[in-house]
């Protein structure tokens, strides 16, 4: 690995100052499960690595009536070890509990997953489906962006070089709502998604009609895709195999996959269709429960 400096700021302002000074030469280290691997492979060569884990704010999360506010450096494992989060945010839990295995999850963070901006980042479709909003902070103070606006290209985000991700806010689930995240991988664990779908739905009080839905797709484009039209077409529709299939077809149409060593275009489109159906069905049954 190349040689670099390491710093451990203890406040956000200190970290922001470092980023302001070093710009693109600096990188935030959260869990390091992307950053260190990328550096070891020579893909990333920051001159300064800024450890986020010395900043108490980034390590905190609050579970409240307005939702879940996650500090950027909260690990996957912290989340699924908290019964409250498991109960309230099953789609998020589905995502965080499949990132690598247990030792990876003990380090990997949701913030890092988002900032790494991989098309396959497992939390991202789940966060988009859940309507999550990210708070970024730079020298000019904080600003907010919906998660779907964060990833611009593989490995590239809307964050300026002098900004860092402060937190992610997931709104509290409303009545008669449910969400689900699923991915397809060839093994049963330890794989990068060939395709993935996060879905969330809000149903009528009797559970028979969709009021709204959000569907997001992973690994079928240069960034995770918010398949807005696919979710929107469910609004007002009855919950039925036919409506689910319509949404699945629309999600498939929104997918723009490529052929690579992990999957083919044809396979990925089919998988988006299947996973959209399956996640919607599960989201519906959670909403009805």
């Amino acid at each position, binding site marked *: *690995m*190349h*040689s*670099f*400096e*390491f710093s451990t700021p203890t406040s956000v302002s200190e970290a922001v100052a470092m980023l302001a000074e070093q710009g693109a030469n600096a990188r935030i*280290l959260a*869990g*390091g*499960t992307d950053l*260190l*691997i990328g*550096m*070891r*492979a020579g893909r990333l060569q920051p001159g300064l*690595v800024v*450890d986020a*884990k010395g900043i108490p704010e980034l390590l905190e999360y609050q579970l409240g009536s307005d939702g879940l506010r996650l500090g950027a450096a909260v*690990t996957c*494992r912290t989340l699924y070890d908290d019964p409250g989060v498991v109960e309230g945010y099953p789609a998020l839990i589905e995502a965080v509990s499949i990132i*690598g*295995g*247990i*030792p*990876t999850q*003990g*380090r990997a963070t949701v913030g890092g997953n988002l900032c790494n901006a991989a098309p396959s980042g497992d939390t991202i479709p789940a966060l988009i489906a859940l309507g999550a909003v990210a708070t970024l902070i730079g020298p000019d103070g904080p600003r907010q962006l919906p998660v779907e606006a964060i990833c611009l290209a593989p490995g590239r985000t809307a964050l300026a070089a002098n900004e860092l991700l402060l937190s992610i806010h997931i709104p509290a689930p409303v009545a008669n709502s449910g969400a689900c995240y699923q991915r397809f991988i060839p093994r*049963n*664990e*330890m794989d990068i998604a060939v395709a993935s779908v996060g879905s969330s739905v809000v149903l009528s009080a009797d559970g028979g009609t969709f009021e709204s839905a959000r569907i997001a797709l992973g690994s079928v484009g240069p960034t995770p895709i918010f398949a807005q039209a696919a979710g929107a077409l469910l609004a007002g529709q009855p919950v039925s195999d036919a409506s689910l299939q319509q949404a699945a077809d629309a999600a498939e149409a929104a997918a723009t996959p490529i052929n690579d060593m992990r999957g083919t275009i044809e396979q990925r489109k089919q998988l988006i269709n299947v996973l959209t159906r399956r996640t919607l069905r599960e989201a519906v049954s959670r909403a009805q429960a």
Partner: protein
Amino acid sequence: MSKVHVTTTVNGEEKEFLAEPRQSLLEVLRDELHLTGTKEGCNDGNCGACSVVFDGTLVCACCVLGVEANGKRVETVEGMATREGLHPLQQAFLEETGMQCGICTPGFLMASNELLKSNPNPSEQEIRFWLANNLCRCTGYDKIVKSVQKAAAVMGGA
């Protein structure tokens, strides 16, 4: 790049070393502290041969920087056995033939130990899920799973 002075606790003992930031926790354990029980199989988080407990959490030591250990507690396979004898997991891996070549064994022991701490009586599926970040190419996992089940029983979980 100047080296950083790191003070840490490894298996209950305070240790000091100098490390370059680019050295992983795995490298400093093996090369600076000469605790070579923790193994390298991939250096990118996929094989679990380097599993250690870092500040109470199971991690892959290759995915942690050595300098991050400053002020932290690290537990490695060398700390598992006590003066009284082997840890029940170590004993079970011996009795149930939970190893062939043994290169993956330290990682499996560390990971299994963390499993049993949080779930003293895991099902076969729970064991397989928990251990999915640890690759073994020799055993086909069957006898590793049985070793963990046996240790769980001995430790009174069952």
